[in-house]
């Protein structure tokens, strides 16, 4: 079953086609990787899928429903969550509050309930706190719940971003270079975490530069180059695909490899 689908998705900036008629199909329950050289249009794809940019043309559907015209907050309401390549946590808030904010779409607070402190409000808050703590537990930040987010180390901030994104049990999780800046031990722990998230029922689409990380983790890989989709398939097939090798290494090196 396909959870996320883009059809002929295109984004043109003044004079530049950042994403060019890309078809992408992400299977429900899979870990899907989006890879490509720098400037291939991966982050633009993410911004289009999460609703931060309106596409020039093409369509995006989630679980069969067309969401192309939905604003970002409404996509979150439909079970989409994401992290950012350059970490965007709420630095002045506590770690726990960051994660609670990630639950905003599923709390749906009513002003009357808040002002009158109705039982519904209390129930929602208690429920939200326990879900947020569970998410922090999963990423290993449970002990830091009361600290200011700005006080966390870089790797912990990345994990906080993931906790914030998964707190509401999204159907689709978009991770933009989650392993950036991590050492091998950290990125292997991250791979475990992502598998656990997938096993808990969340489909994962990730952009990543670390090829070893992608090949070990992903069920399926889509390769972009200059905004176009140049390959799509299982990791093992992608690794042998000559167009992919050329795109990454340049035509000369690829030819020499072939000759050897």
């Amino acid at each position, binding site marked *: 079953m396909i959870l996320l689908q883009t059809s002929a998705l295109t984004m043109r900036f003044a004079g530049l086609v950042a994403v060019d008629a890309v078809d992408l199909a992400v299977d429900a329950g899979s870990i899907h990787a989006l890879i490509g050289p720098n400037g291939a249009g991966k982050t633009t794809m993410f911004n289009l899928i999460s609703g*931060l*940019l*309106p596409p020039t043309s093409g369509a995006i559907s989630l679980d069969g429903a067309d969401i192309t015209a939905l*604003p*970002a907050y409404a996509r979150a309401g439909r079970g989409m969550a994401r992290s950012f390549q350059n970490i965007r946590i709420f630095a002045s808030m506590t770690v726990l509050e960051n994660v609670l904010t990630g639950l905003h779409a599923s709390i749906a607070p009513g002003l009357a309930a808040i002002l009158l402190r109705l039982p519904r409000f209390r129930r929602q808050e208690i429920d939200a706190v326990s879900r947020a703590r569970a998410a922090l537990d999963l990423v290993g930040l449970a002990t830091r719940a009361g600290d200011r987010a700005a006080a966390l180390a870089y790797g912990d901030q990345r994990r906080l971003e993931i906790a914030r994104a998964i707190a509401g049990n999204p159907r689709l999780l978009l991770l933009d270079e989650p392993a950036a800046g991590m050492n091998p031990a950290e990125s292997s722990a991250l791979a475990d975490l992502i598998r656990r998230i997938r096993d808990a029922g969340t489909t994962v689409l990730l952009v990543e530069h670390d090829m070893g990380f992608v090949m070990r983790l992903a069920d399926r890989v889509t390769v972009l180059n200059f905004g176009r989709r140049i390959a799509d398939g299982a990791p093992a097939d992608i690794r042998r695909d000559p167009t992919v090798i050329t795109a990454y290494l340049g035509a000369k090196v690829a030819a020499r490899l072939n000759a050897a």
Partner: protein
Amino acid sequence: MLAQQLTNGVLLGSTYALFALGFTLMFGVLRVVNLTYGFYFTAGAFVALLLTRSYSLPIWAALPAAAVTVGAIAVVLDWLLLARLRRINAPELSSLMVTLGAVLALYAAMTAWLGPDIRRLPAEVLGGEAMIFGPLRITQAQILVLIATAAMVTALLALMRLTPIGLALRAMAENPDAAGLMGIDTGRLAALVSFICGALAGAGGVLIGLNFNAIQPYMGEAMMLRGFVVIIIGGLGDIRGALIAGVLLGIIEVLTAGYISSGLKEAVAFAILVAVLWTRPSGLFGRTQTRRA
């Protein structure tokens, strides 16, 4: 009657255009809404007043002197208020707030020092008889306003199109992301842009002082409101848009005053601003993309 109104409107509007030009350039290049800009306008008028009254300078000499003086004031104010915010990369509303506080303090201090009364330029500065062109009556002050505005706008456009630094400024105004790529020292750039814009606003103050012959500390504040209308209609950071919208606003104001009521000038201008925000938020001539939150 209508021809006379239109002439007055174009003359008034050309001063608005001159004023808004510096403002939009400042926003375009430095990405700040600098509200001390209105004070530069007041300062220009007062420097010209001082030079023509106390030192009996002719207006053609007082105008450039006022422009240069105010340009220098603008560089100092920019350094005092905005250099720190640029260094810490503060949000854009911080610079708006800091210059807002500063401009209130400056106006209030000037009023406390010089009084709120309206002052006038010496009569000989304004020139003699008005000239008659068929049905049109144009004062010598108005002609000076037109010539000076045309000269300054031409000089600025030439600077922007023909010199390397001007081309860099224009590229940055049109594409803020290019700023970092140009490799220009931001401190020197801010000083340069502040000087140009301060000089433009200062000259605008002298010219409006000539046109209406009424100089008063808060005159820059009233002008600032018109500046906002012009840059919203023309598009934030859009140089060509500011020129067209400035002249347009001048004509609209004169026609409103002439055919409806002079008390409604501000309201009509503001209604146009709101209408543009509803229909064309990037300005009537805008191509700049608006950001989705």
